[in-house]
């Protein structure tokens, strides 16, 4: 990306803070609509392709062969190294925990997984892409937890169409009302055990379905990007651009307009608010390398720094008018932090498919759309809302050798063949929005750039705990019914944050007294500041949220530019 403009001026039409999934979309939409846009990225530059330095490497090319740099992780990456995508092949896409500290209550651990570099977590994300429905947008109004969403599915549906058409989502059309179909590229195949489980679950459990995952990976060439070649480890980066990321997709589109400037190593300190004008005028930045303080000005500001980081910037933007954080007259800023409870489900073995195998390392799994609390028939008395399940089946490989007796030629030749099929299925559940789950600035501790670090307060409530118990029992029941052997239920005690679906710290709502943003992701109090990352979510639903961030961001950009044209911003 040597075409990046050299920084000449300090004033732009728009500033976007963050370059992950939301920031990439904001950059694309605003530049395509003609706004000279500055993207501020707190981390280093990453060049698509060239900087995917581990992309093609075989296991033998890593010093510890994938076992990880254990001692380094213990001291420098204690939180990040718990992430499934973290390892010798990807460490360079995760922050050093020591250099980027945060704290939490001793009895309320929170795992905050971060990637500070151009593209952010869009480089390592899980790529699962599901629409939300009115089951989700009406949930708060229905049971009274959280404030009512100011939007409904019908308003977002055309924007889901819009972002899916560009991003490229592979999936199957299923006609499920609460998991609406989208604009899909051809679906990936299930393997024979997944198909077997699907048939048995759908036969034995009225109304349940098992579908192939909907995933932002190309099954056919799309918009100049190449299709997936099924190597497996997407999170190392993909030079072919086969999965959607800011670097493969949105930032190149933004760059092509000639309206984009990217400034890396730019830590957003705060939003500058002008009391006389009663609007934000720019963003205060600390250069990550030189520690120099800089100011950049613009007509409109989009915060896309991620749920927790955007809240940090807003909380750190204080003035006489907003002493507790920008646009915080409601007091909701930083509160109602949510994630998805997961890691509860079951595994099972299947022994009757010995002659079947698969070809390719599919970067996708199967999905069981939510089947609880949809109606009177599916009501669960133990908890509100619900969960969907994800999983997949594979054949066990050489790793089993350590549990196998023997050694020598027979042992080696036995390990040469794949062993039994194993399936893993777990739930991803909804987290109720609660005021007591929140982030705050710890003014006694500052980071290397002089910014107060965050203290996080978040825990699961009884509702999430009951839901996870049901994930475990319900998945085990399905795998038993499908004829699985050695069904092993599991429930891991993972802290919030571990699912990397943080949401809710600047929630949308109809009432400025109880919410930070209106239905356009626009601050009720400061009209030229928009927040379009996970902060905006008024509830968490149970679907992976990134696709919804994309749709909300594109929609907010369209609205902001119209408001500028109308002279309202």
């Amino acid at each position: 990306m040597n075409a990046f403009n050299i920084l000449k001026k300090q004033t732009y039409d728009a500033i976007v803070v963050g370059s992950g999934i939301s920031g990439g979309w904001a950059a694309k939409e605003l530049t395509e609509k003609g706004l000279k846009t500055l993207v501020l990225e707190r981390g280093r530059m990453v060049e698509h392709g060239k900087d995917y330095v581990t992309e093609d490497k075989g296991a033998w090319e890593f010093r510890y062969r994938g076992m990880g740099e254990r001692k380094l992780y213990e001291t420098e990456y204690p939180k990040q190294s718990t992430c499934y995508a973290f390892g010798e092949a990807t460490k360079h896409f995760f922050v050093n925990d020591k250099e980027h500290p945060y704290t939490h209550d001793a009895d309320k651990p929170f795992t905050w997984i971060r990637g500070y570099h151009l593209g952010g977590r869009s480089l390592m994300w899980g790529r699962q892409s599901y629409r939300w429905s009115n089951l989700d947008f009406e949930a708060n109004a229905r049971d009274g937890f959280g404030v009512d969403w100011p939007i409904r599915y019908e308003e977002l549906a055309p924007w889901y169409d819009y972002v899916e058409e560009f991003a490229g989502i592979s999936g199957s059309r299923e006609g499920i009302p609460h998991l609406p179909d989208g604009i899909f590229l051809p679906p990936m195949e299930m393997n024979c055990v997944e198909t077997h489980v699907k048939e048995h679950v759908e036969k034995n459990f009225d109304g349940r379905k098992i579908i192939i995952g909907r995933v932002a990976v190309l099954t056919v060439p799309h918009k100049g990007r190449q299709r997936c070649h099924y190597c497996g480890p997407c999170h190392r980066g993909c030079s072919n651009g086969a999965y959607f990321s800011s670097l493969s997709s949105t930032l190149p589109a933004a760059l092509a307009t000639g309206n984009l400037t990217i400034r890396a190593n730019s830590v957003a300190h705060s939003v500058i608010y002008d009391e006389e004008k009663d609007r934000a005028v720019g963003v205060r930045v600390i250069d990550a390398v030189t520690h120099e303080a800089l100011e950049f000005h613009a007509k409109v500001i989009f915060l896309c720094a991620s749920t927790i980081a955007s809240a940090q910037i807003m909380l750190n933007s204080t003035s006489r008018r907003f002493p507790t954080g920008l646009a915080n007259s409601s007091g909701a800023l930083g509160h109602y932090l949510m994630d998805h409870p997961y890691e509860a489900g079951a595994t099972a073995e299947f022994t009757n498919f010995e002659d079947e195998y698969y070809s390719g390392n599919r970067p996708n799994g199967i999905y069981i759309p939510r089947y609880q609390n949809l109606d009177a028939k599916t009501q669960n008395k133990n908890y509100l809302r619900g969960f969907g399940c994800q999983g997949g089946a594979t054949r066990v490989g050489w790793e089993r050798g350590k549990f196998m007796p023997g050694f020598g030629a027979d042992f080696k030749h036995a390990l040469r063949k794949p062993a039994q099929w194993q399936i893993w299925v777990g739930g991803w559940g909804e987290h109720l929005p609660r005021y007591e789950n929140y982030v705050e600035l710890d003014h006694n501790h500052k980071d290397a750039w002089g910014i107060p670090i965050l203290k996080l307060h978040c825990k699961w409530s009884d509702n999430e705990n009951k839901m996870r118990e049901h994930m475990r029992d319900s998945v085990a029941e399905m795998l038993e019914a499908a004829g699985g052997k050695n069904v092993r239920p599991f429930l891991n005690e993972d802290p919030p944050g571990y699912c990397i679906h943080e949401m809710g710290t600047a929630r949308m709502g109809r009432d400025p007294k109880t919410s930070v943003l209106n239905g356009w992701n626009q601050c009720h109090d400061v009209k030229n500041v928009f927040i379009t990352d996970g902060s905006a979510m008024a509830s968490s639903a149970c679907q992976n949220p990134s696709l919804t961030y994309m749709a909300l961001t594109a929609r907010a950009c369209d609205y902001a530019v119209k408001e500028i044209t109308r002279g309202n911003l």
Partner: protein
Amino acid sequence: MQTNKMENHMNRREALQRVALLMGGTISAPLLNAVLSGCAPSARQVEKPWLPQTLTPEQNELVAAMAEMIIPATDTPGARAAKVNEFIDLILTEWYSSEERVRFVDGLNDLARRFQQAHGKDFLAGTTEQQTAMLTALDDEALAARRTGVKDLPFFAMMKELTLVGYYTSTIGMTEELVFQPATDRFEGCIPLGRVGKTWAELN
């Protein structure tokens, strides 16, 4: 521009692989990478001889011999050819805690001592039957420890696990013993095992 560059790269890679197939063999991944990056292995590059950092030369030979007993050369090369002993020495030196390192080395010395006591000679000088009997006894102990969920695994459990990891993540393990397919046109969910014949070597 970047995309075109990658297409060229991929085309070149595919072309090279096709050539290799025509020649009736596979081109090893390191060689392929070297050719792709334009730097063929140079004859002038003198390889520094490898020396163990934690194991003594005698212990290293014992580890290499035992690894080869676990994964021997058959119709494909075994653990010794895959330099599993070098991997094990690296793990002992840099990865294990001092407690784990001591447990491994003590276990290794204990095995040598037990063999000497039983047969009056070094393990390496023993007959295949004597060596196999010794490892079988150790393997039984190791599996029993795994089954009871012992946290600090005994020597042979460590030895066997490191041998497996070292072998199946080596070029030999991934590309000769298993089937390595870094790219394919499409994911096929259900194919006859016979078409592959062996386990896939997977990147992750």
